[in-house]
């Protein structure tokens, strides 16, 4: 009897050990720009490294993958090579990923910043606008000329939404403020972006914010002796006297959670749009020049956002032309946020 129970016990132990042993997972990442761009892809790669640190997981990536047929091939290759989870980090990869997802039902596909879904394909994004709102508050407090300059990349919804959130945040603490927008049509071109920042400085802006990944605009602000809002925290080392704060990405927790879900078999396809509460976006530490009372007010707002009591795009929200886009009494829906095509009042700039 005792021998039998030992046998049964060891069988049970053996089986549970087998289940508990981590299944080897291969996770692939597709980046739209080089990871050294100190911005978008860099942040994703930091997240990848968090995944790579997990036991039983190997990761790999391909960078600077053009959207279109190239990305389809890259994703296809990853699937063929037996990758279990593939993350595609740019909107333009959406259709390609969907095509490949249909051919490989056992592989999990996750698309960043898109909207299409499939049984084995989900999408994910972060509410960067929350962090931008907070950075707008800081800018609104610190400006003296009441002109804020925004060096903007491409007229796509997330950039537009970011500018609007920044403007709303600034206006909430300083109603006289105006935001001027200059488009560079680049994601990381320090020379062009610095020139754009200089042009904003020339029209009197004394805080420069940006959506691009290069520290060019930060340099311009520091050289002129004014303030700046970075994008991804490294920038403070480029402009220690100028950077007030920066909205930053933190993809690690999301990537780790997704991979663990796949491993444990609990992953399901959905549209994920995490915010500050989940830690996917955050505000970089304040620069030394930001006074204590400003810090406290901003931290208070941040806590309100995290707890859900603050509503950032609460109506009435009027656009540049005076039309009411979000009526009083309600908050902009996620759908409206994701497809934002207008600038709020107080933003001076074209949309294309």
């Amino acid at each position, binding site marked *: 009897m005792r021998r039998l129970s030992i046998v049964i016990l060891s069988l049970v132990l053996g089986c549970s050990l087998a289940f508990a042993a981590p299944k080897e997972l291969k996770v692939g990442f597709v980046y739209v720009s080089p990871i050294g761009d100190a911005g978008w892809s*860099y942040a994703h790669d930091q997240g990848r490294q968090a995944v790579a640190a997990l036991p039983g997981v190997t990761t790999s990536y391909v960078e600077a993958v053009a959207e279109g047929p190239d990305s389809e091939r890259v994703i296809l290759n990853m699937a063929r090579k037996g990758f279990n989870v593939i993350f595609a980090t740019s909107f333009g990869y959406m259709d390609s990923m969907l095509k490949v997802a249909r051919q490989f039902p056992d592989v999990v596909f996750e698309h960043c910043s898109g909207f299409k879904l499939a049984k084995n394909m989900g999408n994910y994004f972060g509410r960067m606008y929350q962090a931008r709102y907070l950075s707008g508050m800081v800018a609104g407090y610190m400006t003296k000329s009441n002109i804020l300059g925004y060096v903007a990349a491409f007229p796509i919804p997330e950039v537009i939404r970011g500018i609007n959130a920044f403007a709303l945040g600034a206006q909430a603490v300083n109603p006289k403020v105006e935001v001027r927008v200059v488009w560079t049509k680049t994601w990381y071109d320090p020379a062009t972006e610095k020139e754009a920042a200089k*042009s904003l400085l020339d*029209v009197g*802006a004394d805080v420069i914010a940006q959506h691009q990944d290069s520290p060019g605009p930060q340099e311009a602000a520091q050289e002129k002796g004014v303030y700046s809002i970075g994008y991804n925290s490294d920038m403070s080392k*480029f402009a220690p006297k100028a950077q007030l704060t920066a909205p930053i990405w933190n993809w690690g927790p999301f990537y780790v959670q997704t991979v663990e879900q796949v491993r444990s078999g609990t992953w399901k396809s959905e549209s994920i749009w995490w915010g500050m509460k989940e830690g996917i976006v955050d505000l970089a530490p304040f620069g030394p020049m930001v006074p204590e009372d400003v810090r406290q007010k901003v931290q208070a707002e941040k806590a309100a956002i995290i707890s859900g009591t603050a509503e950032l795009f609460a109506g009435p929200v009027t656009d540049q032309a005076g039309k009411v886009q979000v009526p009083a009494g309600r908050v902009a829906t996620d759908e409206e946020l994701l497809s934002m095509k207008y600038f709020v009042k107080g933003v*001076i700039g074209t949309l*294309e």
Partner: protein
Amino acid sequence: MNPDMLVPLLAAAVQSGTPILFATLGEIFTERSGILNLGVEGIMLVGALAAFLTAKVTGSPVLGFLAGGLFGAALAGVHGLVCLTFLGNQVVSGLALTILGTGLANYLGTPYVGQEAPGFKVFALPLLSKVPLLGPILFNQDPLVYTSYLIPPLLWVFLHYTRWGLGLRAVGEYPDAALAAGLRVKGYRWVGVLAGGWLMGFGGAYLSLAYTHLWTNGLSAGRGWIAVALVIFAFWRPWRALVGAYLFGGVMAFQFRLQASGTNLPSSLLLMLPYALTIGVLVFSSWKGKGDEAPAALGINIEPSE
């Protein structure tokens, strides 16, 4: 746009035009000797990276600047090798050099994107920067801009008042006659290619050490090609190159200021301005010129005799 913006705009024009100026002067040097070097864009990028890395490693922006010139000349040397020694087609060689230079700079520089190097800062010249109007525009710049002011007169003196300059020009206009007269045609052309590459490298170095203190893929953004066009606009003369380079710098700076002032024009169209202007400038030059400004033997390889 209000008139207060004019002085900052012109100052920005000078800064923006300086890398183009270096590159244009370098190409003038090369083309005057008879060699067409279309690899300017690639050479500028390699120069920018070399300057950036050298400054970062040694901590000295001056060494970085010199390194930019050195590596620019080295890459131009490849063009010289292919065209002067191996008699390859100059147009295609230049294009290949652009592709190679761009690829090399991006490949070797990828790990350094997002890092900063010690660079040059603005340094107002004591008395001169107080001169009304011109002072803040011309004399409130960084040391490399001041260096660039010296090159056109030096180049002009060299080309027109020294024996070697005369030899260089002769080699570019009448190589057969020059050869018969005992001039070392290949030697002069090598000097033209290498010295030109050196100046182009300086142009690239300016972008990563003074204009910004950063490196990224594609830092030059087509300025090398604009330089090639400006050589034609300048009728191959150093002084006119100044006008062209600052004009271009001005257009690039202008379209941003127009946006910042709150225009309704779509930014895509505004961004076209420098390129459309280049075409306009070429049309203007051809229309105004007599057609004989180019060095007569430009782009033609000397075939060895039977």
